[in-house]
């Protein structure tokens, strides 16, 4: 099934880094695909190369081996990807409006037009009151909403999310997860979402890729049998706890090994 979908195909991806301690293999033979309008989560312990994988797809890093291919070419001016970072993703020297419009600005959209579009989007997600605020005036959760809004407005082929809610408190996280699902329902596109939160992965995605680290490899691909549209009440579904337990069993060994806790 891996190559049957119209979307993104990563084939035999490998990435090595040179460090002072010598060669480090961050990723090894990573093969997977993301289908059109599919929401895929990658879950794994910290240091398993999740961020490296996203940066390869975002072209911020070059793979040592393997290929990354999109089945379709981008429409005029459309970027391949837009990445949402865990922290420090939005520019502190730009207002919320300028930040949200940044993707369009880089695509060469004129000032008036991009501000018009950004304003419309900001209004839709309820940030209108803060259009002219600077990031330091916003809470961490609000900043991530700005980063996500910017990514959606840039209208890329794929959205890459690197633990966007990782630094937020548990309640904020729940609300933003629902908001992400709501925005995505209206603007369906490929999402590759990296997290270490198993529940987050299961509740958001159509498919979970479980990764282990050093070198980073994909252990298993788990389809999530929950329907769409979906909200967070899905967590009470009996399948969810079973899947969560299954994923945890896969990751537990490595987490214990990293912490030097005997099994």
């Amino acid at each position, binding site marked *: 099934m891996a190559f049957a979908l119209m979307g993104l195909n990563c084939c035999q991806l490998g990435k090595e880094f040179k460090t002072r301690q010598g060669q480090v293999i961050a990723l090894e033979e990573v093969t997977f695909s993301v289908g059109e309008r599919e929401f895929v989560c990658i879950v794994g312990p910290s240091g398993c190369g999740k961020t490296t994988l996203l*940066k390869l797809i*975002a*072209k*911020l890093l070059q793979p040592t081996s393997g290929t990354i291919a999109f089945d379709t070419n981008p429409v005029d001016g459309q*970027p391949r*990807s*837009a*990445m949402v*970072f865990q*922290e*420090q*993703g*939005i*520019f*502190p*020297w*730009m207002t919320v409006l300028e930040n949200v419009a*940044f*993707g369009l*600005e*880089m*695509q060469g959209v004129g000032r008036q037009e991009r501000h018009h579009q950004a304003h419309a989007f900001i209004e839709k997600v309820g940030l209108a009151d803060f259009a002219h605020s*600077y*990031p*330091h005036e916003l809470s961490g959760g609000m900043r991530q909403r700005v980063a996500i809004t910017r990514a959606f407005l*840039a209208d890329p082929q794929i959205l890459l999310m690197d633990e966007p809610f990782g630094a937020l408190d548990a309640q904020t996280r729940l609300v933003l997860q629902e908001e992400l699902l709501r925005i995505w329902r209206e603007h369906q596109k490929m999402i590759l979402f990296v997290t270490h939160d198993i529940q987050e992965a299961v509740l958001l995605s159509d498919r979970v890729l479980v990764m282990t680290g050093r070198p980073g490899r994909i252990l298993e691909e788990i389809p999530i049998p929950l329907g769409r549209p979906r909200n967070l009440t899905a967590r009470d579904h009996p399948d969810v706890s079973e899947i969560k337990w299954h994923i945890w069993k896969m990751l537990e060994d490595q987490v214990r090994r990293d912490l030097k806790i005997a099994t």
Partner: protein
Amino acid sequence: MAHLEDAGRPGAQRSEDSDLGGKLRRVLPNLEQQLPVAIIVAVLALWEWRARSGSISTLFFPAPSTIIQTFARLLASGELAIQLGATLSRLLLGFALGSAPGLIFGLTMGWSRRLRAVIDPFVAALHPIPKISLLPLIIIIFGIGETSKIVAVAVGSFFPMVINCMAGVLQISLTYFDVAKNYGAGPLQVFKRVILPGSLPLVLTGARISLNIALLITISVELVAAQKGLGAVIWLAWQTLRTEELYASLIVISALGIGFNLFLQRLKLRLVPWHEDLQND
């Protein structure tokens, strides 16, 4: 203390606005601001009294009233304006000639690791030299005229600018570069939208330090080798023992220094409205 705080409230203020105490309290609402002013007034009063009674030498410490009279006389005759103009033109020209290349070098050194590796050793080696000690060498090269003075100021202004601009770029989180690149920014856009605004707080700090050093070197150079300028006035006043002129020049130089710093503080508030530290600045 309690009545002072009351005076800070609009309601309490209105009734006292008419008398002097009320006005004073409105300008300086709390004790922390009133005390320094009180101390200055007390010291000046003591100074005036001791100078008039002859218990301190007016050769070293002319009475504040004499200094103010001298100041007023120099101001009225246009003498002060001429000297101030000479100092300011050297200072600003030297500052511009030094800080502009400092800005360009600093930003590009922060941006390019290779350029930094090549140039940083030279900056690190030359920066600790007290720049005023280079004056004789500069005079040998550029002659005794105006050029050597301006070059000395420029050399002094260059280094704080280079170092702060470089640091300004280096402290920008790498994530911002990743974000810009991910959205397709080219080198020019990265420069315009990330490097320039991201380094601006430290660039302005560099400008402030450069300007202060430019003032220091301008006055020093004038003390040693000039016919005109506030430094030359001080030197002449010392040689002719006209101490009150010396003090009058010092007042102008202090005002200049304070003025520069206030100006750059305001500029920072305007240009960097996004900076978190500004609230305490």
